[in-house]
């Protein structure tokens, strides 16, 4: 079973005061007999609860040919804070998650029977309960016997539909078990109910934000009825936003006093096919939501509504206030888990910059140096900073040098629009100095490099409030987009037949700019020692400067060992990469990095490869056919299932490819087929062209493919197909080499 695409997490998740990470490996073992009595009795009450959506055993006709149909999926979570202890014992406050899940699925074929032949349940707290049963085609009901259930080793993934909500958002490691389902056949209905109780100690925590959730309405199987219910006491806050036509959460009356109830229901949801050029969050119906616990009625600095309010959006003032407060608080947080604070890091960076002699540096040069210093520090870590930390650090270093900068907030363009920000984690941060924008560093980025996920979006420039809690100035801003000419891949290929005329010897020089560079640089720089000289970019000192002779010797030995290792691994890596690109065996691979693209002066990534391709040369009698156009590599093909378009198109960023191929005509041969190669398709969405000619004993092909825009209406799909098809079909074309008479 596939990991859920319904509960999807952003990379920057919220602070938790309580994370259970256990180092113990739970051995696999059979379930304790004592547990069995409890498990079923704990869940039995749910069978008596009214559940109209689960009463029927019939599925709609339209879904009878589906592998399985989810007839009902109900998840209910109750958040309840309780206090215990008193005069004689420690006063404790606990937040309880009481979850009830009911799941019912009709299995129509062997494929889904196989997928659900094993089911999982949690028994980590003595209140946990689970009952599973099968309803046969003739209506007979049989419970699944849990006695041979075995424990799951920690660290293993629990499949979709079986993991508790608490475990998903708290990364906790309660114990799970699995059991095969006896007597399961196509035509059966499998149903389970589970109830779990999880506890969080909040005695010393005044505020906890739980992991935001993104529920994409469509799943692997069609869903007849999907519901999610949250009930919170008056210590928790709930917010939710529905997008792209998904139903909304609705507030209902709770049976409990001082409790609030929020209900989401979705019905008759078909399966969405995987297709090209779709950003799921922007196009598929989805609902996002989050629960926040707060000890006090007004949790300061939180993006929440009022007690009992179903909060669906935030004003720009609320967002700006939240973003600014979070931004300011960054200095007190640690740079990474267990490391010194961000402020300490800033202080150290500032000291380092001063050592490099920044006093008289022009502002722009200083800005670049500061950027590269931060980049250098991140280079030796295995984790990037989040936007907020980078912006704070960078902004602070500019401030030290009296350089004025502005703070911009926005949202990822693959997540949503600015007005749809619901979670603090969705806010993205950028620094602006005059007309230049500075995005979060990566190992490879240069100052001013644009980030694919932050193009074209609406944003706000936000300023510090005049006084604490006062009004903030907020200015709308639009983040720049890019043109195809900003994101280029220029490939220059020289090639000729091998002496045996059965393969192509290829020398390829590739140059990348813009977002194209960002996509390719990781592979290009793999197994190259770019890290070693990185200090030069911020004007730092060589690590060797203060080394004693023994240290220096050790250091040099280590460098030597590293480079030897790279020399061995790089050609293998490049070979595998080429084999995947050309879908055939590749031999005689060489690689040479010409420019790593990691400086402003030389920001184009350029490298050269040499290799031999065996499947590009064919014979027809005494003639040869050479698939020169195929040197562009595999081209995108839109297959029959995707030729009709339901959604608008998102290609992520406009881009341009160009290939200049020079083929040396072997002595004693003439060429034909160049005229037939020429092609041009051009329209609003993009273009593809080949210009072929013969010149000075060589065949020269100039091939270009351009995606003009990032977002394209689905009404223009046929236009896109025209140039995509042209590129695909052209990649199979040959030129003919005929022996001279």
């Amino acid at each position, binding site marked *: 079973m596939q990991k859920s695409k319904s509960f999807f997490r952003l990379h920057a998740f919220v602070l938790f005061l309580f994370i259970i990470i256990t180092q113990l490996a739970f051995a696999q073992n059979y379930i304790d007999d004592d547990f069995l009595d409890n498990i079923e009795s704990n869940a039995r009450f749910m069978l008596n609860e009214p559940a109209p959506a689960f009463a029927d055993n019939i599925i709609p006709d339209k879904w009878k040919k589906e592998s399985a149909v989810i007839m009902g999926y109900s998840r209910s979570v109750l958040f309840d804070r309780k206090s215990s202890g008193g005069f004689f014992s420690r006063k404790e406050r606990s937040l309880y998650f009481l979850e009830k899940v009911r799941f019912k699925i009709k299995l129509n074929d062997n494929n889904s029977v196989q997928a659900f032949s094993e089911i999982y349940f949690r028994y980590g707290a003595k209140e946990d309960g689970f009952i599973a049963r099968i309803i046969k085609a003739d209506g007979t009901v049989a419970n699944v016997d849990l006695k041979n259930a075995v424990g799951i080793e920690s660290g293993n993934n629990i499949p979709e539909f079986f993991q508790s909500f608490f475990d998903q958002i708290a990364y906790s490691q309660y114990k799970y078990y699995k059991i095969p389902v006896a007597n399961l056949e196509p035509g059966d209905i499998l149903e389970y109910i589970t109830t779990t109780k999880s506890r969080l100690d909040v005695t010393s925590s005044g505020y906890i934000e739980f992991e935001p959730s993104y529920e994409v309405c469509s799943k692997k199987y069609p869903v007849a009825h999907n519901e999610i219910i949250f009930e919170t006491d008056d210590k928790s806050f709930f917010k939710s936003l529905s997008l792209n036509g998904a139903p909304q959460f609705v507030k209902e009356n709770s049976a409990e006093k001082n409790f609030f109830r929020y209900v989401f229901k979705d019905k008759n949801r078909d399966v969405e096919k995987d297709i090209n050029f779709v950003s799921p969050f922007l196009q598929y119906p989805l609902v996002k939501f989050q629960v926040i616990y707060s000890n006090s009625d007004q949790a300061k600095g939180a993006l929440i509504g009022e007690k009992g309010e179903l909060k669906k959006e935030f004003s720009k003032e609320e967002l700006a206030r939240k973003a600014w407060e979070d931004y300011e608080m960054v200095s007190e947080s640690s740079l990474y888990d267990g490391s010194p604070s961000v402020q300490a890091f800033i202080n150290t960076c500032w000291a380092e910059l001063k050592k490099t002699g920044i006093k008289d540096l022009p502002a722009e040069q200083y800005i670049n140096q500061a950027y590269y210093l931060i980049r250098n520090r991140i280079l030796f870590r295995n984790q990037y900073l989040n936007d907020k930390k980078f912006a704070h650090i960078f902004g602070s270093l500019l401030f030290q040098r009296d350089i004025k900068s502005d703070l911009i907030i926005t949202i990822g363009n693959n997540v949503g629009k600015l007005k749809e920000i619901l979670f603090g984690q969705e806010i993205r941060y950028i620094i602006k100095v005059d007309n230049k924008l500075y995005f979060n560093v990566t190992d490879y980025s240069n100052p001013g490099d644009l980030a694919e996920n932050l193009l074209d979006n609406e944003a706000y420039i936000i300023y510090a409030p005049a006084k604490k809690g006062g009004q903030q100035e907020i200015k709308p801003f639009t983040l720049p987009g890019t043109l195809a000419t900003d994101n280029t891949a220029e490939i220059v290929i020289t090639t000729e037949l091998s002496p045996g005329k059965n393969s192509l010897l290829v020398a390829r020089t590739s140059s990348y700019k813009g977002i194209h560079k960002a996509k390719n640089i990781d592979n290009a720089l793999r197994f190259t020692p770019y890290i070693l000289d990185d200090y030069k970019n911020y004007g730092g000192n060589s690590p060797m400067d203060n080394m004693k002779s023994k240290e220096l010797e050790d250091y040099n030995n280590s460098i030597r060992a590293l480079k030897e290792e790279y020399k061995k691994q790089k050609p293998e890596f490049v070979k595998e990469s080429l084999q995947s690109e050309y879908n055939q065996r590749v031999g005689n691979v060489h690689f040479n990095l010409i420019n790593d693209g990691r400086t402003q002066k030389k920001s184009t990534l350029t490298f050269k490869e040499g290799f031999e391709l065996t499947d590009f040369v064919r014979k027809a009698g005494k003639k040869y056919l050479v698939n020169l156009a195929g040197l562009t590599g595999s081209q995108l093909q839109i297959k029959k299932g995707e030729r009709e378009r339901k959604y608008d198109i998102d290609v992520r960023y406009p881009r341009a490819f160009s290939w200049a191929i020079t083929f040396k005509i072997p002595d004693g041969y003439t060429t034909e087929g160049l005229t037939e190669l020429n092609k041009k398709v051009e329209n609003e969405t993009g273009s593809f062209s080949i210009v072929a000619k013969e010149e000075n004993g060589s065949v020269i092909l100039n091939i270009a493919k351009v995606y003009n825009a990032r977002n394209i209406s689905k009404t223009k799909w046929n236009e896109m197909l025209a140039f995509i098809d042209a590129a695909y079909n052209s990649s199979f074309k*040959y*030129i003919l080499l005929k022996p001279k008479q």
Partner: protein
Amino acid sequence: MNLTPLKSTTLMKIFSATRFRQQFAVLPSFSCSKLIRCFCFIAIAQCFHLAGLTQAHPADVAQAEMLSKKYKDDNVICLSSYHYFTFDKGKNSLDEKVVVIQEDAEMEFLSLKKYSALTYPEFYNKFIRLKTFKKAVKMGSKYITSERSGIDRSVTDENIFFDDSRVQYFPIRFTEKGATARITVKKEYTDGKYLTRLFFHMPYPVLEQAFEFKVPEWLSVDFKTMNFDGFKIEKQQTKKGGYTNYVFIMKDLPAYKSEYKRIGRAYTDPHIIIQVKSFESKGESLKGFDKTADVYNWNNKLYNLAGNDKEKIKSTLSKITTGYTNDLDKIKAIYYWVQDKIRYIAYEDGYSGYIPASSQDVITNKYGDCKGMANLLTELLKLAGYDAHFTWIGTRQLPYTQSLPALCVNNHAITTLYYNGKEYFLDATEKYAPFGENAYRIQGKEAMIANGDKFDLKTVPLTTGNEHKIFTKADFSLNNELLTGKIQVSLTGNERKDFHQVYQELPISGKEEFLSSYLEFNNNNVKALDVKTSDLTNRELAVNISGNIELDNAVHTISGDKYVNLDFFPKTLGQYMPDEKRVAGYDFDYVLSFEDELALTIPVTKKFTDIPEKLELNFEGYDFKGEYIVTGNKITLKKSLAIKKSIINKADLTSWKNFLDSIKEFSSYFFSITDK
């Protein structure tokens, strides 16, 4: 954060950081990859026990320097691996007297590079106890034992629901050339029969591998040497004080490298099979595995613990056979019912790995493993009045015959049916296998057939590629730059069974697309339409899939002539082309043949030129024939490729490579169509 100038330790971080990035080369975009790498790094770093500030002894450094010249492609070498076995008497969990074996082992590893790493595992389960597992790292001239235990994990195969297979392992990381580490192991085989085989080769080169056995007088044990020919292995045997010591030493072993479809090491690598034949206990002589009958008796005893109750399966049998009047139909109905209705879910914990689930439990659960299915099938057939027997067999990955009395001979269970003077081998785990046909994985293997107190041995017949055929016939005509026509594919033998095993398990909604893509042969330029099939509910019929087909980008018009490659799905077997580093031969695990007849008809005003020459290649285990035949305005490519034997030995790799090269060249040919 420490911002002092970089030191060696920091460089270690560079190397390790880079190394860990390398390990996750397949990760996508940078923003996800770094975070994911971070998690992986943290997880692995937690597991890694840093060698610390080890100082390699100068003698070790010198040795590493010397050895690294010989073992250029290896990062680590095992200097010595010594295993010492002693024998005791004990009882197993069935309260039977058995021989218990203690193993004491010590391995020493040397780093051949400045930065290197290895992971050393020890496997264990309910029958094999891991009593001691320690790692020590050398500092100067002394070994310092780590206080940490090995990392413990389940190693249950993904096809097994639950078993007791576990591993403990130490990741060891070296930061200096010449750094050394030592592993110490104590293991107990609670029943000597579970110590079956010992291989000499390891995943790293070994300077010396030694196995020593201290055999007491009360024990009769045999050490069967396998694949020793061609290897230099020193054997010693000495008697002293009531014991006989057997020692086997092999030196200078290259690393065992895992390769794609490599011939199983049991076929090629030297190893010892330990055969505890008999032993004396308090004056009583007790049998181990001296003869094949001993193995049978042990198997049979466990089989009889299944607890079958035929009364409980009667009603199911009745339902299965209702409506069938002749024996063969009844037999098939029973066989196919077990295939179709019983899912493969395996509990292999302890003795449940040897005792079959009862037939009634398998029916109730509708799941079981091979033993459970074989047991149920046997019981159903017997209850129906047929001469069926539970049978043990080894699959082809095990080269041993039943004459070797050891547990490593059999790893599978089937049913043998005697019917009409013939024996039939019925494997219920092979879904959709028709009655009378056997999966290749048991062909040529000896079956141990239960027969009360006795047993029979029969060999499953071997087939050649001809019985497992994919026959493709296509008739194209030229439609400008498109080839259009009809195509038909027929599958027989194991190819038919394999097709069913995929097709029948697909989601309903995916079957139509699957059939279309089957006729498209993984070629993106092919479009299949109006697909029809033979009756796919009948596993005994040859599978026929036919339809209309359009082939694009196969015709190239250049200067008015057309160049065509008709061979649109060449079976060049590229994945079996050995590269220059290939060490071992191939085991395909199958035999099959392809037969193609692809024809193209052109207008009568045109003619064919540049017709490729015929190609015919004949080797002992494989052959190929390809020919273009022109008849008027029709050209037909007739091709056949047969893999008659599943193994390509190392000595044959050059011939095999040439064979593949020749086929590839033939399939790349174009012919041309010109005006008359």
